């Protein structure tokens, strides 16, 4: 019993069950780039941006939610507001069949079935699916972000980033004529045809020109070299995180992760750490994203693990290291004695530490423990270039999350 509008039915769908096919993402990419480029330009021209990045979530059973990234825009017009209309938003619709006036003929739960949103719960979806959508999302986000404090470190491997140029050459047709190369080709042709009697006195008007002599420039993809980075995602999955805070943190980390995936062409290295009182490293973002909530909270355990990995694998000389941590701000170590020690250690090598506190609704107006001890330590002021704190309400929307990310990674 969905609200149905008469303008939604069309012949193709009704008769032939014709639906859109599932196309690869490759075909979209260029136009999406153009679109976002254009949107950026709007601001410079003095008009508000119009393209919004949305995620469609289809709730699935047992956490098998499907997420699809889509750009949306609204064409603003003077139109009637349906929300104050009795006949559109809510009640009146057509109906047919039996039933007395006033008789209830069907019902629908007010709250959507469980499983909406992201976060806890292990599903059967392949991790791959998340990756490919995340990649798309990142593409859109990359417009908005840039990694801070990126230094040239090591040359073990170069991160690839592509730029497009018009440097490839092609004979016969193409985008624009390379005159010098064409002329050279013509001379070659004429030499082989023995059409140049006197090499010291060339008469161009006597040249024979074959269509194939024309050399054009065409679009080419060029590699761009950059420094490499290692990103640690650390997430609190303690009991108090259940529900909204997890969702918020995970959503934000999805955005960051997606952006990195795209921006650094999946070449950036990411590590995923979950902690409650103990920390554990998980192999991929999928597990990180989907892992269920566990016991109490010790923030220090997560930080400690990061420090251990960095030290053990000797990452400092070769990598720009970024750490993103998401928590609800609860910590059994309420003065942060251990946590602050680990943070200070991290500050020595990290290019940026971004801590997100997704405040629980019941603790909304008072500062959380993590927030308190970090503020008290004065590190936020003294090391503002390296340490950032972002506090978001647990029901933050997409725009707030993105704003938060900007704060975490701004220069």
């Amino acid at each position, binding site marked *: *019993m969905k609200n149905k509008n008469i*303008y939604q039915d069309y012949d193709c*769908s009704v008769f032939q069950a014709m639906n859109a096919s599932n196309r690869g993402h490759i075909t979209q990419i260029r136009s999406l780039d153009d679109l976002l480029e254009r949107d950026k330009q709007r601001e410079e021209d003095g008009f508000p941006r119009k393209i919004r990045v949305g995620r469609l979530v289809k709730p699935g059973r047992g956490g098998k939610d499907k997420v699809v990234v889509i750009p949306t825009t609204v064409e603003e017009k003077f139109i009637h507001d349906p929300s104050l209309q009795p006949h559109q938003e809510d009640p009146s619709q057509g109906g*047919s*069949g039996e039933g007395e006036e006033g008789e209830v003929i069907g019902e629908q739960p007010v709250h959507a079935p469980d499983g909406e949103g992201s976060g806890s719960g292990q599903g059967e979806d392949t991790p791959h699916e998340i990756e490919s959508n995340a990649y798309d999302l990142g593409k859109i986000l990359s417009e908005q972000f840039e990694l801070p404090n990126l230094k040239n470190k090591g040359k073990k491997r170069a991160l690839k980033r592509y730029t497009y140029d018009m440097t490839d050459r092609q004979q016969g047709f193409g985008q624009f004529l390379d005159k010098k190369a064409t002329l050279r080709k013509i001379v070659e042709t004429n030499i082989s045809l023995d059409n140049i009697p006197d090499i010291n006195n060339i008469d161009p008007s006597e040249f024979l020109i074959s269509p194939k002599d024309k050399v054009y420039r065409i679009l080419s993809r060029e590699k761009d070299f950059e420094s490499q980075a290692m990103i640690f995602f650390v997430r609190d999955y303690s009991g108090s995180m259940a529900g909204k805070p997890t969702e918020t943190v995970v959503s934000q980390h999805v955005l960051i992760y997606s952006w990195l995936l795209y921006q650094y062409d999946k070449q950036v290295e990411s590590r995923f750490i979950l902690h409650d009182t103990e920390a554990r490293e998980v192999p991929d973002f999928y597990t990180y994203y989907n892992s269920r909530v566990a016991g109490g909270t010790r923030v220090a355990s997560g930080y400690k693990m990061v420090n251990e990995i960095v030290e053990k694998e000797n990452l400092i000389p070769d990598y720009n290291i970024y750490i993103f941590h998401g928590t609800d701000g609860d910590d059994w170590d309420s003065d942060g004695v251990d946590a602050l020690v680990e943070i200070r250690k991290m500050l020595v090598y990290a290019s940026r530490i971004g801590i997100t506190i997704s405040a629980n609704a019941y603790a909304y107006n008072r500062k959380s423990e993590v927030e308190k001890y970090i503020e008290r330590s004065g590190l936020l002021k003294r090391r503002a270039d390296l340490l950032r704190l972002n506090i978001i309400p647990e029901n933050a929307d997409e725009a707030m999350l993105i704003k938060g990310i900007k704060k975490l990674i701004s220069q």
Partner: protein
Amino acid sequence: MELIDQHTKKIMEGCKARARDAGLSFQDETLEYIVTNRDLLELSPKMMIPTLYDYWVHDVEVLKEKGKYELYPSNPYETVINTRPAISFYNDNNPDWLNVMIFYHVLAHIDFFQNNLFFEHTWNYDFNAQALSDKRVISKLRAEKGRWVDYIIEFTRGIDNIVGFYDELSDVNQPQATKDAKLLDFYFDIFLQKIKKVKTHEYIKEIERYNESFKQDSSNQKAFFSRINKQYPEFEALYKKHIDRDSSHKMDIIQYILKHSPFLNKDENNWMRTVIEIVRNTSLFFQPQIRTKIMNEGWASFWHETLFLEDDRIEGHEVDFAKVHAFVTSMPRVGLNPYSLGMRLFSYIKEMVDKGKYSLEFRKINNKEQRSKFNSSTNKGKDFIFKIRKDFSDSSFINTFVDQDFVSLHKLFVAGKRLNKDRGVWEYYVKSRKTEDYRDMLINTLYHPPYIKVDQDKTDDSNLYLNHYFEGKPLVNEFISNTMLGIEYLWGGPVQLETSELESAPSSNENQFAMNYWDPIIEEDEKSELVWRRILYKMDKKKLNRKILD
């Protein structure tokens, strides 16, 4: 995209012959294309017109539809477009019998496009070709002016839903006589009475004088007025001004801006007019479509049913047909289906006329039994529905023909939806079985853009004043700012909009309000508390101001 094969085309030609015999009329040529789902995805934001001008919002739509499809694989597409020749789109693996059914449906659509008077302004040219040339103009301009072309498109599209479709239609087939009368009307109705304020006896004398001169020579109007021009030297100038004003009054906002905008009147901005005209004409082209949805789909469904069942080529597929047909035209328990509603209404009207029930005789009968038995066997039903197909649009169709017998026949009702807080569910219930309520509900679901006009008295050389004639529905508040921003750009100066809003600006308990307001139990109380206020918005230098007027 490729044309259907010869075999299928032959089926189509067979359908055409049978449809013609049944009375449908359409041009001989049609084009049928096989399209992939991928083509459809890209066509749908362009309203299925392959040659429509490029615009980035279409691209966003395509990307969005693709994303949506991944989750919810069902998308709306229209199959027939109102071009010359008419073009329709098909799946490549439809069985023949299904094609027969779809072809009849399509032919009835084409018949509707080419005969319904609301489409009259689209009859004399091929929109596909028009759109192609427009598209080329726009891409040429884009090469010169870059993204500014897109801003012009965007800003014009912001007001392209309030194009003067009916004004445009009213000019079609306007008899010459009414145009000639204008001068005379002005002289007697306005000039003498309102401007000169002559005494009654003088006025009557003047009329007599005119009649006298008219009697002598009916082509004498010129002589009559040349005398007046001598008597009142200012007359001609005043008349010109009046005509100008009068025609400006009929203009929609886009036309008014085209004519009077100080910004567009600059030489270097002249190219923008072309773009604006293109957007406006495109919008005008699509206007009748959305105003005849129920009729158009009903008409097509009515005919595909009628013609298919009579078609000798499809023997053995009656059951298949019944399945698809029932799927398309069943009445939903809750919700509206334009196919089934329109089809049933056409069938109902045909039967009513066949039995002579649209008559005083029938109307006088109050006995239920006698009413149902009544039959004066006129058998003029078919002619009658052809006339309706020519002269009506959705709103007049519903207003005229949805009556108690129709509502009872199909057991129609208005379904309500209310919150049951105890059980945490939305309940759907039978809200009303009254014909008037059902009709109102239908009328309210129809497309209806707000009525906004330029107020010429309050508009001057720099300041554009728009008046929203309030019809009980406020505008979407969050769209006002950007729409006005666009108009300000096109106009080149401050723009004002007068509209109505609820007195208590939507506040924190807005949702609750909206939810409870229409709850039938408290409906009456709440309704009396509604206070509408006239609000004046002013967009000046990209800043929006809001002011309460009364």
